[in-house]
């Protein structure tokens, strides 16, 4: 009980205002850069990069993750990890399924065993 005074870290007001200022500057930056056509994916990558910096500032200082018990950070990063897995793998599926079919590797139209599978009731011993 000797560290009663330290148990809740009180972040100085100046930190909150600095973070707020940074968020405003980054918001202005994201609006300005969106007016310029950088070509291809550059605009979306830049906008998401700035948004990620803004989100990190909010998480670290407004949500105190920078000062907190690291368990909270690990929990949150877990959700980010699964968000990335979710979107990446769905995108890979949607983008590349056609190509696999075109190359005949797994085309349902060409695959005899697949046709048998959907037209007949497969016997328990059939190999499909």
């Amino acid at each position, binding site marked *: 009980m000797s560290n009663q005074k330290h148990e809740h870290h009180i972040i100085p007001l100046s930190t*909150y205002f600095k973070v707020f200022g940074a968020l405003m500057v980054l918001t202005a930056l994201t*609006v300005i850069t*969106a007016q310029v056509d950088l070509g291809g994916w550059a605009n979306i990558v830049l906008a998401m990069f700035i*948004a990620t910096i803004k*989100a990190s500032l909010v*998480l670290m*200082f407004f949500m105190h993750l920078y000062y907190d*018990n690291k368990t909270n950070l690990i929990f949150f990063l877990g959700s*980010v990890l699964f968000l990335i897995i*979710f979107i990446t793998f769905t995108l890979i599926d949607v983008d590349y399924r056609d190509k696999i079919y075109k190359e005949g590797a797994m085309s349902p139209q060409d695959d005899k065993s697949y046709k048998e599978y959907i037209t007949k009731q497969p016997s328990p011993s059939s190999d499909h």
Partner: protein
Amino acid sequence: MSNNTQPYLQHHFANKEQQHEASKLGMWAFLVTEVLTFSGLFCAYVIFRNIYPATFQLCGDLLNTQLGLINTIVLITSSLTMALAIYYIQNDDRKKTIQCLAVTLLLAAVFMVIKYFEYTHKIHVGQLPTGEFFYPNLPESVGEGASKEMIRPGFYFSIYFMMTGLHGIHVLGGMAVIGAMMYNTHKGRYSSEYYTPIEVTGLFWHLVDLVWIFLFPLLYLIG
């Protein structure tokens, strides 16, 4: 350290620090499920943007960037006042805590009013989800090639209304909780010794801000 001097300490916690940490971890677990709830919509956005790039580009231009920017500033400012409310309750200044919470609530209301004007305008001109879409003045393409064609504009607005709608529901929910926090602070239930509910409400409110930080560029800016 007897329980009699700390009526807010529940018997199954060793001390108030542990109780505070456990509550916060529970809130973070909830925030994880919130991120995953929104991730379904973000995933839909990425997939459909990938399939219909021109549709997203042209429909994105129909959104009012100024209103989106004002709402971004309003929400970030409300996040600041929420953080300040926690700072003041940590310093036992209940009056300023209530003032900060009130400003947060007011800014949330401003956000919802702007959202209301955006929605009514879109409903009026027919920028609506698939099936209901009837907005007539859309260009057909943004250049040469099949991928530059404007197809199924309703898809964009389905995603727009779902994403901003779910976010708006969170803002309304947050407003209700912030109101409850103001009432409880006014009743003197919180102090620098015990302010976990306000801190946990703050975490929720910042998450709502986080979602908007990504929604704003995705929906309003990248055209």
